[in-house]
């Protein structure tokens, strides 16, 4: 008979504690055991041997951002195709039409993006 008691999840809990325990133990250990020699060079951020200049948080062109966001957008929406493809046979012609509608909306969006010149670099 299938039971669903909290006890059944005990192995997972043990696994969780072991994993967490290992991380905590090693971090604490290295901290305690390892030698500490602080100097200016040691505390500076590593810049491939070149001396660091200015702040890392520089504003950069919004175009990178836009492109990245648009990529993520279309990338994520394409993921919808996977479950659809798996169930293609069961959904039949209805599913096909629905996917067409979905793709139309997606393409309209794409069309809009292109027409608004969001992807033009210059």
């Amino acid at each position, binding site marked *: 008979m299938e039971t669903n008691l909290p006890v059944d999840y005990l192995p997972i809990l043990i696994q969780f504690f072991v994993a967490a325990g290992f991380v905590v133990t090693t971090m604490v250990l290295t901290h305690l055991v390892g030698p500490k020699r602080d100097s200016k060079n040691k505390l500076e951020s590593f810049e491939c041997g070149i001396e660091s200049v200015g702040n890392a948080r520089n504003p950069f062109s919004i175009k990178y951002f836009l492109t990245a966001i648009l990529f993520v957008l279309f990338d994520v929406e394409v993921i919808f195709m996977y479950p659809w493809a798996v169930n293609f046979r069961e959904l039949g012609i209805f599913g096909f039409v629905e996917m067409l509608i979905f793709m139309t*909306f997606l393409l*309209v969006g794409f*069309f*809009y993006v292109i*027409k*608004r010149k969001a992807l033009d670099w210059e």
Partner: protein
Amino acid sequence: MVALISLSILGVFSMIAGLFNVNTKAVLTISIVTILGVLGFTAGFHWNNDYSRFYDMLNFDNYAVAFTCAILGSTAILLLFSEHFFSNIKQYITEYYSLIIFSVVGMIAMVAFDNLAMLFLGIEIMSVPLYILVGSQKKNLLSNESSLKYFLMGAFTTGILLMGITLIYGETGSFDLSTIQSYFQENATDSSPILLVGLFFLLAAMAFKVSAAPFHFWTPDVYQGSPTFITAFMSTVVKIAGFGAFFRLFYICFAPISEVWTTAIWVMAALTITIGSITAVFQNDIKRLLAYSSISHAGYMLISLLMVKNVESEAFGAIFYYVISYSISSIALFSVIMAVQKVKDSSSIDAFKGLAKANPLLGIIAAVSIASLAGLPPTAGFLAKFYILKSTVESGYVWLALIAVTNAIIGIFYYFKVLIAIYFKEAEDQSLSLIASSLAYKIVAVLLVIGILVLGIFPDLVYSIF
């Protein structure tokens, strides 16, 4: 269903129309006509004709139809009033329309949902366009700031909302409202803590959307920073949708265990009304003042959730009447603000000095709408408060009614600050007399004023429809 599809297509249409430089006036006209057509169809076809769709995830019952019509009607009136606002904007006008329409699509899902997943979808579809609209004045720092604030806090609340939905699903095994409701009925006495945590998470998330204390902090900043037209949209249409969803969720779905959440609502309502009206006293910016006033009004509307023991049609009538009267009064007042802002680059109360003398029509519109917001007879706002308070007392919440009445009196103070500026102060310059309104604006505004008064005299037009 038809409403959702046609409005989505309308949204896409106006988005694409912008690409081809279609005349914005034409797009606006098409949008308004379509919205009104959808309104007519919804009211005519779905009234007394329950209609479930999407595997029972949406249900257009009378309640949903009434709120849908209120949302569509308010949006149409707001769009009619948009001339003053859009006359200062040069580009991407149709994108505004399309975002507003998409937002409206989300709201319809919000007031017609029968499934928590649909609620979530509705709220997100409504909110995401709003984040953009709030920040639509790209060069304005305040607008950017409020957009970011709204987005961050909105995202945070979305997390809470999802968490709540998840917990409830975990306990009941369903997203479906009727299943959840029957689960509550069976386990009314000993609900598990997980379920209650989920319920209160939902409560917090909904309270955020309708800006009830202590989840209201975003409201003044966002309302002040947004373009005035969007502020008007948020404080009226969005509020209707928020309350539509809130009421549908709690009054219908969580009614069996109302003992659990009424105390929280009680305290939140009292807190919301008090904070809203007392803080408003100090404000000198009319948009910020109206933000606080809208918080205060949200408190009154929250009270209606306490009428869970009353006759259903009465409770529905009271909340719907309040929503309608608040919405048309606010829209009328915002239309005046937009007109004034067109000539004065300020939303401080001082900018309204001498308005009545320079433009008597705007003065009268402002006077009637302010009287209605302050709850003075014979306007709709008076009876709206009256019905709410009446049922509050009938349900035994005498102290809450006292707090509400006290704050209504305080409310008169800050509303009249505006009215005094409009009627009894001398204008600082002549710019107010430059306001030129189109005939359409005048007609619609006068109709609104008449509507406020007619509703105040014949409340049954709205109050008894359920």
